[in-house]
């Protein structure tokens, strides 16, 4: 249970949040036409005749879009409806050529499911999913190109969206943020949405209401098309505060659609769409019911990758990684891919050693360079080789750091670097004994004090010896030989 509360003049208020996430389905062509979905094309160059709703044009569903919705449903353990159908949601708007959006009200393709999210407290919470339905995206309006016209670009019109409707199970901005991040992670693992929020591939309608703890649900507002996790959390904070102030000033919250303005960090009422709230849904007579065969469903299931929760459990259980490492290595599909490539590399590095190296050394370096793991200058194979050189004692920790830095700059293989720069660590007892003899000779006082019982000076001799050998001596061997020499 979240203890997130809004402090009002009349006491504490609880926030109730539900999200409708619109996720663009990854597909080459649109939901009902053969036009491309590629991002950033010239206006109206990716428009099929049916997208522009020319008279007599008809929709034919894209199998891949159905497949991706089903796979997504399976990934959140949702019930899959083998019988579903498309309905028409009727309303007039300049970005909607048909005068209706083809969507699924009565029989969505995916039913109830759930997603488990992790909170900073370390606790986990299950957020219910009510449904996932497929629908068409609308076109794009540009209002600032002409004094008296808005311009219409239909490239996005008809692109497939999954509307993923959560239950009103979230109670704080943190929970909502964690939910969206987890959902995004799952979609990217499944490959059904690229999760690119900057390009609008994921947008959320944020439903917020407030109530005194224990009271019945309050009236909610819906803030449309919020396109980043940060903004979603900001909308919740702002909208909850606004509603509390409104109520405490004797006002009432009206159920309405609102718009978020990131520059002003405020939401405002979106009256323009209010009047047409009678959508007159009915089954689209241009389309027959969607009936999915067992073979189709089986193929969808078989094609699912290992998902973040399962992967994390396996990393902890089978690979024995720390909970922390397991969770950071599985949060993003690219990270997990990189890590698993590392484990599979020729050196077959030990999983725990590898996970520590990735989460400390590699992540540290990438942070400094401001790079994502998919653009890492060091390949998994090179990482594996480096870890191998540490394991077999060729490199000490200090040397390994030096070598890694050179790898990041030059992209060279660690072995080559060690050879070329002679950075090998030595266990040659003869050489080490000679240096030790020298060190003892050069520090008679310390030697005397040590022999006099000041054992703490042992470290001093180790340091001197390592220094004299520029860190290339094997620390274990040095310890052993020093003990002998100091008798």
């Amino acid at each position: 249970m979240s203890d997130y509360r809004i402090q009002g003049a009349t006491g504490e208020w609880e926030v109730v949040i539900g999200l409708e996430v619109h996720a663009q389905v990854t597909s080459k062509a649109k939901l009902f036409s053969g036009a491309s979905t590629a991002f950033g094309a010239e206006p109206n160059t990716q428009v099929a005749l049916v997208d522009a709703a020319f008279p007599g044009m008809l929709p034919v569903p894209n199998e891949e879009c159905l497949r991706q919705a089903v796979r997504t449903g399976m990934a959140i353990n949702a019930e899959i409806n083998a019988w579903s159908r498309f309905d028409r949601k009727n309303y007039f708007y300049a970005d909607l050529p048909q005068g209706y959006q083809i969507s699924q009200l009565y029989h969505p393709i995916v039913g109830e499911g759930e997603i488990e999210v992790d909170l900073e407290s370390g606790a986990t919470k299950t957020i219910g999913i009510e449904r996932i339905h497929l629908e068409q995206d609308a076109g794009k309006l540009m209002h600032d190109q002409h004094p008296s016209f808005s311009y219409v670009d239909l490239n996005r019109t008809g692109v497939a969206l999954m509307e993923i409707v959560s239950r009103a199970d979230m109670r704080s901005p943190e929970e909502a943020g964690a939910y969206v991040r987890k959902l995004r992670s799952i979609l990217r693992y499944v490959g059904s949405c690229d999760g690119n929020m900057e390009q609008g591939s994921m947008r959320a309608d944020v439903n917020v209401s407030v109530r005194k703890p224990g009271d019945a649900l309050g009236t909610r507002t819906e803030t449309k098309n919020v396109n980043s996790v940060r903004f979603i959390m900001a909308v919740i904070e702002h909208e909850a505060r606004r509603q509390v102030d409104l109520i405490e000033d004797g006002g009432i919250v009206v159920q309405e659609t609102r718009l978020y303005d990131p520059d002003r960090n405020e939401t405002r009422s979106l009256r323009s769409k209010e009047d047409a709230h009678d959508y007159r849904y009915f089954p689209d007579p241009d389309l027959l019911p969607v009936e999915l065969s067992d073979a189709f469903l089986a193929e969808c299931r078989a094609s699912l990758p290992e998902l973040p929760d399962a992967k994390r459990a396996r990393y902890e259980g089978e690979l024995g990684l720390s909970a922390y490492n397991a969770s950071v290595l599985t949060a993003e599909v690219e990270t997990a891919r990189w890590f698993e490539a590392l484990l599979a590399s020729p050196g077959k590095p030990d999983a725990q050693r590898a996970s520590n190296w990735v989460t400390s050394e590699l992540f540290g370096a990438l942070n400094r360079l401001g790079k994502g793991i998919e653009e890492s200058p060091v390949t998994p194979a090179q990482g594996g080789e480096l870890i191998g050189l540490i394991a077999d004692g060729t490199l000490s920790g200090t040397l390994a750091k030096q070598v890694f830095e050179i790898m990041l700059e030059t992209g060279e293989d660690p072995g080559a670097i060690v050879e070329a720069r002679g950075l090998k660590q030595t266990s040659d007892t003869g050489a080490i004994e000679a240096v030790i003899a020298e060190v003892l000779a050069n520090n008679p006082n310390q030697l005397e004090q040590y022999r006099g019982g000041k054992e703490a000076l042992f470290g001093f001799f180790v340091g001197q010896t390592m220094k004299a050998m520029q860190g290339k001596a094997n620390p274990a061997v040095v310890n052993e030989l020093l003990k002998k020499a100091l008798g």
Partner: protein
Amino acid sequence: MSVDEAKVRHIAKLARLAVTDEEVRALAPELSNILGWVEQLGEVNVEGVAPMTAVIPNILRLREDIVTEGDRRDAVLANAPVAEHGFFAVPKVIE
């Protein structure tokens, strides 16, 4: 179901049809009449009957996920009442 003039105006608004006062006056009784007539369907016992989905038994065929159309902006805009710079143009919308 008798349809009053307010209802006629509301439906006309939903349907985006501008209606004159006399059209409204004419439509109210007309629609009441027609709706009254179709309401005889209420008599039919449809206990356990599923609404018709496909007139002739048929399976919905799906398309492959390949790009087959596009790059014909001129054709798409050819019949537009107002088109500028490759866009359709509509009276400015204030959101």
